[in-house]
């Protein structure tokens, strides 16, 4: 902490609270000095400050002390009056305006950093003109009537030697009429020290003799000591230059070198001496004397107990006097004024003890008198005296506070005084490092006048920085307040200055509301002072004002564009925040050896493609020695790291633009910024022509035709808060290294935004995720451009996006190669072979679809080769070149309902083009929506009577929502099973079509056409027509579909392989294909997209029955026998078939005796015995219960059936392997002719999972079938 005397307040007090010398001079004196560009007072002013006057002083006490620093204040008599308020105000305003002009050139620089502010000391932070302003402010209050330190102590009378009758002039000068009114009306003591000065102008040589005469006359008249001669203007030419011009700091309006041009060093020395002598020999002793006198006088009247009481009593009596006259109740001669003068003189002579005691004495008097202004003035002085004498801090503060609040109480008239008091108080607090308190003092004296308030607030804000720790929030706030006040009084420069400093506080915070306000206004103000580019720079910060209200945003944008227009040029702004680019949305789509047929296919995840292409692309990692190894050697390592793209093929970048505002913005000319570097030395391998190394030449972005790449431009409008995904492309037209550097756009046609990708760390996610993992985003946007290559374009024609399950379509894959160089070795792989099946030949279908699938007149029974590899290789001779296109037929069958993504990848190789890329793949992606249609299920049960025949129940349900279907044809697959109808077609489906949701069951018969004896797959060829039945009645001419030759067969194969879990070709399964079509009238609108036929495949249908075995009893139906000779023995054979997966053990028990007693099969009613045997038809065998209902009443049985006996073993037990059969010989003996029902046996079976297993899983007993044998008497 500095000593109070050396603090800024101490210096200020030394300057301001110092003796006043009234100067009275004649016009000729002024004239003499004006030759130097200075008035008389101004000439003397620099020599009134004495830093080491060293005068011994003794005031009230006996102690002598020496004055070191001393100052005199010189005023012309005319100036000794209270300044006009208006003039003072104008002067202050002038000071500020001037300062504002000075700072103007600083405004262009960047705002200061907060750390710089904090590290600066006070004098560096606050502008220097504050001190000057404060001084001026205090000066406006000089010569007030309630204070005594402005009372003139002495009077300097100056007369020029050129004046006529100088002695009379001296007398005239001190004529009371010409004295200031303050002296005349009794506020100030007119009886003051007088000093007489004769000025002699050396340039005026004629008067020299006269001068000495006048001087001697003066001395005799006014006294020897009181008279002086001042010779001046010794320089004849008037061009003396002063090295350190003493006047420069006092008068700045005139160039410094002009000042004092006629004064030589001797003259200055003379002036200096004069003033020194005047101060030390006259003023100080005079004041000393006066202090002593007053002190004695006051001691006599006021000190001591008696005087105190007297004083009190006397004051009481004065209570009646109204307050209104308080201004004039104290004249200089009143006791109170005398005490005040004593105090002030003592203060000026640095005897603070005496000053304090006098002030204390007087302050109670004033308080009692309710002379508040005087009271406050005294309190103020007390506070200062306490401070400067380094006494109690608390007392000092208390006094200042008291003074300040008392002044405030006086209302408007006291405010100015309160301001001065506040300034002193604040300085006092600053000197004691109480900056926070100082700030609050500044805040108190803000007042209502905006300019004044602005300055005070700004000073307060600097105090907040200086507090430890710095209160930056308040600093910012006060600066903003101050700036607003400056703006109100049109001090724009100052407003900008304060806001600039405030920016440093808010810059790094997230208080966007405040930040926007500051940036917006500073931008506006910069525009006012004409610095539009700086204005734009600041305004840019508020463009991203999404949190503001819509109207605010509109104002922001409108003003911004106004200013931008004013600048008249297109600014290019890096990092423009409108619109916002979302870097996470950045997607790079480019084609190296992978090419894409459509946008959709490019967005498919790379891993899907990779897994699809696994077996068709030659792997780079394979250790095999093939042509690939050569390639990897040729390829420099750095190229393997970077992405490859091809000349003439565009690299696409998807990115998302987001409008943070609520109002819509138009963004135009969005394009990429790219660099194409030609790396001739590295590419020599394949580019022999550019063998001359040209180094690296840069090709910055231009849209001119000479550019080595072309860019796309996009215009769009973003609504409030809208996001838009924008695709930008760059197409290189030369080889080299292409770098995508950034993106640029124009905002509302007036400002260009630039965004560089490098500045954003990581997160450039592309669909090449796998490759990008190890690459930096910069690398991801770097491409090796290679020479143009053929690029295959492909599409699948007429691919519907919505179709029914089972729908069979004929499609064409169209491939096109636009370049001249041929491609070869085409291969294709399809992700869903179940759905799509390429035709093996390039041929157009002659009869058209679907007729081509129907059976032609000539039956071509050649089995299609169904070699099912997942890769379809086009024939070797297929090669594409030029504009030729290849149309390859494809079959599509919607196998299962759901949403299906179909991926096609076509591999092709180029001939002798590039060593970097030998092959490319074309990727196509289509998605299909497959709706459910007919659902079929089959149940096959063995026929009860015939081993080779089976009953099929087909259940169809229409699962479609709206469409109805007609069924057309049912076929069995393969040559083994023949199928036949059980009912006429009309009875199965009277309504012809199956409505949505409708279910239907119908029955068929299938027959195993394989020779029963042979287990080998040696099938008898049955007529192919036996495998199909037409289920449609009306169009008799319509042919059946050929399921053997058509693509249906290959689709069926895929269905089979899908359904069959383990490909154990179980011989006892049946595959069915049901062919249906859409009912004609159901949907007339979508004519072109109607499905023509639908096929429904049902595979691996097992023959199902309730018992795991089936058997039949074979033997002759009719026998002739001569019973006269012997009884008849008939050999029978029982064939038992194990239909289950388990091991079956069967025991056959024959029952002799009355067949009536044997229980017949309960389901078939009482059928035992002799009866009429109807012709066996297929209908009869439909189901047993059908027969039961028909034959409810059995035919009349014979009276008694001739007995027969089982003549073989009565019980046989056999083991049957799964799905195999065995034959057991049986024998009966018949004794008389007749018809015998051979049903009197039972089969007891046990089923177990394993051979010889003890535990059986199931068991049961079967009754024998009725089986009739007719035995006739032979002739």
């Amino acid at each position, binding site marked *: 902490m500095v000593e109070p005397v050396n603090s800024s307040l101490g210096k200020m007090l030394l300057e301001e609270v110092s003796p006043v010398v009234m100067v009275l001079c004649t016009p000729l004196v002024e004239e003499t000095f004006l030759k130097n560009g200075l008035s008389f007072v101004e000439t003397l002013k620099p020599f009134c400050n004495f830093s080491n006057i060293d005068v011994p002083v003794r005031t009230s006490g006996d102690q002598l002390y020496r004055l070191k620093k001393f100052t005199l204040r010189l005023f012309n008599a005319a100036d000794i009056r209270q300044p006009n308020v208006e003039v003072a105000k104008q002067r202050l305003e002038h000071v500020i305006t001037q300062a504002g002009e000075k700072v103007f050139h600083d405004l262009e620089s960047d705002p200061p950093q907060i750390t710089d502010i904090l590290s600066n000391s006070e004098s560096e932070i606050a502008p220097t003109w504050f001190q000057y302003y404060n001084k001026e402010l205090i000066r406006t209050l000089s010569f007030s009537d309630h204070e005594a330190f402005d009372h003139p102590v002495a009077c300097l009378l100056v007369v020029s030697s050129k004046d006529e009758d100088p002695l009379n002039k001296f007398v005239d000068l001190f004529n009371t009429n010409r004295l200031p009114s303050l002296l005349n009306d009794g506020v100030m003591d007119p009886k003051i020290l007088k000093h007489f000065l004769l000025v002699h102008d050396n340039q005026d040589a004629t008067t020299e003799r006269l001068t000495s005469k006048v001087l001697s006359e003066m001395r005799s008249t006014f006294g020897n000591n009181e008279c002086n001669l001042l010779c001046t203007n010794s320089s004849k030419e008037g061009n003396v230059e002063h090295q350190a011009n003493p006047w420069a700091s006092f008068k700045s309006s005139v160039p410094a070198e002009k000042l004092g041009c006629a004064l030589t060093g001797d003259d200055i020395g003379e002036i200096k001496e004069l003033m020194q002598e005047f101060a030390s020999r006259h003023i100080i002793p005079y004041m000393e004397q006066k202090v002593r006198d007053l002190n004695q006088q006051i001691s006599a009247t006021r000190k001591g107990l008696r005087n105190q009481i007297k004083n009190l009593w006397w004051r009481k009596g004065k209570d009646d006097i109204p307050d209104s006259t308080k201004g004039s109740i104290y004249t200089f001669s009143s006791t109170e004024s005398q005490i005040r003068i004593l105090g002030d003189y003592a203060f000026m002579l640095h005897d603070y003890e005496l000053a304090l005691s006098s002030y204390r004495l007087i302050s109670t008097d004033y308080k009692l008198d309710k002379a508040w202004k005087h009271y406050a003035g005294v309190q103020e002085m007390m506070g200062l005296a306490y401070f400067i004498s380094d006494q109690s801090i608390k007392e000092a503060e208390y006094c200042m506070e008291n003074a300040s609040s008392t002044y405030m109480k006086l209302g408007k008239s006291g405010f100015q005084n309160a301001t001065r008091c506040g300034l002193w108080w604040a300085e006092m607090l600053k000197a004691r490092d109480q900056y926070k308190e100082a700030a609050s003092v500044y805040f108190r004296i803000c007042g209502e006048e905006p300019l004044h308030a602005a300055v005070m607030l700004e000073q307060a804000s600097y105090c907040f920085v200086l507090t430890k*720790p710095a*209160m930056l929030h*308040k600093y910012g*706030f006060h600066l*903003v307040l101050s700036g607003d006040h400056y703006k109100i009084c049109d001090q724009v420069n100052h407003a900008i200055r304060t806001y600039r400093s405030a920016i440093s506080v808010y810059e790094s915070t997230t208080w966007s*509301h*405040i930040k926007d*306000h500051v940036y917006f206004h500073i931008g506006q103000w910069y525009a006012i002072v004409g610095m539009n580019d700086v204005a734009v720079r600041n305004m840019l910060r508020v463009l991203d004002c999404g949190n503001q209200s819509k109207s605010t945003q509109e104002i922001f944008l409108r003003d911004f564009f106004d200013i931008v227009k004013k600048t008249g040029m297109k600014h290019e702004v890096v990092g423009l925040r409108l619109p916002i680019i979302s870097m996470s949305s950045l997607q790079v789509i480019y084609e190296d050896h992978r090419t894409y047929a459509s946008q959709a296919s490019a967005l498919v995840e790379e891993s899907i493609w990779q897994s699809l292409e696994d077996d068709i692309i030659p792997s780079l990692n394979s250790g095999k020695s093939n042509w690939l190894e050569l390639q990897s050697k040729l390829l420099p390592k750095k190229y393997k790291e970077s992405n490859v793209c091809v000349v003439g093929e565009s690299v696409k970048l998807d990115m998302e633009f987001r409008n943070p505002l609520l109002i819509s913005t138009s963004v135009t000319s969005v394009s990429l910024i790219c660099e194409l570097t030609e790396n001739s030395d590295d590419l020599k391998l394949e580019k022999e022509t550019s063998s001359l190394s040209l180094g690296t030449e840069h090709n910055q972005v231009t849209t001119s035709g000479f550019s080595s790449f072309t860019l796309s431009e996009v215009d769009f409008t973003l609504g409030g808060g809208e996001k838009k995904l924008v695709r930008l492309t760059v197409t290189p037209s030369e080889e080299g290294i292409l770098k995508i550097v950034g993106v640029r756009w124009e905002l509302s046609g007036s400002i260009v935004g630039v965004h560089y990708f490098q500045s954003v760390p990581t997160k450039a996610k592309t669909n090449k995720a796998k490759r990008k993992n190890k690459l930096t985003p910069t690398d991801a946007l770097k491409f090796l451009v290679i020479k143009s290559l053929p690029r295959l374009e492909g599409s699948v024609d007429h691919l519907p996006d919505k179709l029914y399950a089972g729908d069979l379509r004929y499609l064409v894959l169209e491939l096109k190669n636009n370049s001249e160089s041929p491609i070869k070795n085409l291969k294709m792989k399809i992700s869903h072979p179940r759905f799509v099946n390429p035709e093996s030949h390039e041929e157009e279908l002659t009869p058209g679809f679907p007729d081509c699938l129907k059976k032609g007149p000539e039956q071509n029974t050649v089995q299609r080769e169904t070699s099912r590899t997942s890769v379809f290789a086009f024939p070797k001779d297929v090669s594409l070149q030029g504009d030729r296109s290849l149309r390859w037929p494809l079959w599509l069958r919607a196998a299962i309902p759901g949403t299906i993504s179909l991926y096609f990848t076509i591999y092709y190789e180029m001939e002798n083009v590039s060593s970097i890329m030998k092959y490319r793949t074309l990727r196509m992606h289509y998605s299909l929506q497959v709706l459910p249609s007919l659902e079929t299920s089959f149940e096959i049960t063995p026929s009860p009577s015939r081993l080779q025949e089976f009953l099929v129940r087909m259940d169809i349900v229409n699962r479609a929502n709206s469409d109805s279907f007609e069924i057309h044809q049912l076929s069995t697959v393969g040559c083994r099973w023949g199928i036949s109808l059980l009912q006429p077609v009309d009875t199965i489906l009277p309504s012809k079509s199956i409505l949505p949701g409708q279910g239907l069951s119908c029955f068929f018969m299938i027959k195993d056409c394989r020779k029963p004896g042979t287990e080998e797959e040696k099938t008898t060829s049955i007529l192919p027509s036996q495998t199909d039945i037409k289920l449609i009645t009306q169009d008799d001419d319509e042919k059946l579909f050929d399921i053997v030759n058509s693509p249906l067969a290959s689709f069926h194969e895929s269905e089979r392989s899908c359904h069959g879990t383990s490909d154990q070709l179980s011989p006892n399964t049946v595959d069915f294909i049901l062919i249906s079509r859409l009912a004609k009238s159901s949907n007339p609108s979508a004519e072109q997209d109607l499905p023509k036929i639908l096929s429904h495949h049902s595979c691996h249908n097992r023959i199902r029955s309730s018992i795991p075995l089936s058997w039949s009893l074979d033997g002759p139906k009719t026998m002739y026998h001569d019973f006269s000779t012997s009884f008849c023995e008939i050999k029978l054979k029982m064939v038992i078939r194990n239909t289950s997966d388990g091991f079956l053990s069967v025991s056959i028990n024959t029952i002799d005796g009355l067949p009536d007693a044997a229980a017949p099969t309960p389901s078939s009613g009482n059928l035992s015995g002799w009866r009429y045997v109807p012709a066996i038809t297929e209908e009869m065998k439909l189901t047993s219960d059908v027969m039961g209902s028909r034959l409810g009443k059995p035919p009349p049985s014979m009276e008694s059936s001739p007995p027969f006996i089982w003549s073989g073993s009565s019980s046989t037990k056999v083991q049957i392997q799964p799905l195999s059969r065995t034959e057991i010989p049986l024998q009966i003996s018949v004794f008389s002719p007749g018809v015998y029902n051979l049903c009197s046996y039972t089969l007891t079976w046990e089923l177990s999972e394993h051979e010889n297993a003890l535990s059986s899983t199931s068991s049961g007993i079967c009754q024998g079938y009725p089986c009739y044998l007719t035995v006739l008497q032979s002739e």
Partner: protein
Amino acid sequence: MIVCVAVVGHQNNPLYIQSFTEAEDALKLHHIVHCSLDVIDERVNNPSKSGTTMNEAFLGLLYPALNYKVYGYLTNTKVKFIMVTSDLDVRDTDVRSFFRKFHAAYVDAVSNPFHVPGKKITSRTFSESVTNIVSSYSFN
């Protein structure tokens, strides 16, 4: 009447600020809240001066502005709650209970697993409950 409440993160970043006045004085209130951070910092750094005990969250009257009184509250996670009221005659107990409820609402809001700590509170439920709390306190 409470004119403004704010939640300020421990890096003096605003997490939530809501004014309840009709007039367009959001900027002023933002400034007031922003300034009061200095006072909070001061209080927290010199606990002896403030008179409150160390472990109390309620910081009391921060400073009286022209027409407002500003109260502060500091949670254990150094999150600051600031309340600006235009009532000049307020009992501390009322303010205390206000802050307790406000704190509870804040805890509910940041307990949301989708809330990112240190980011602005955007929960609609939070702002509703704050509005409810504010409207239930008129102090007079």
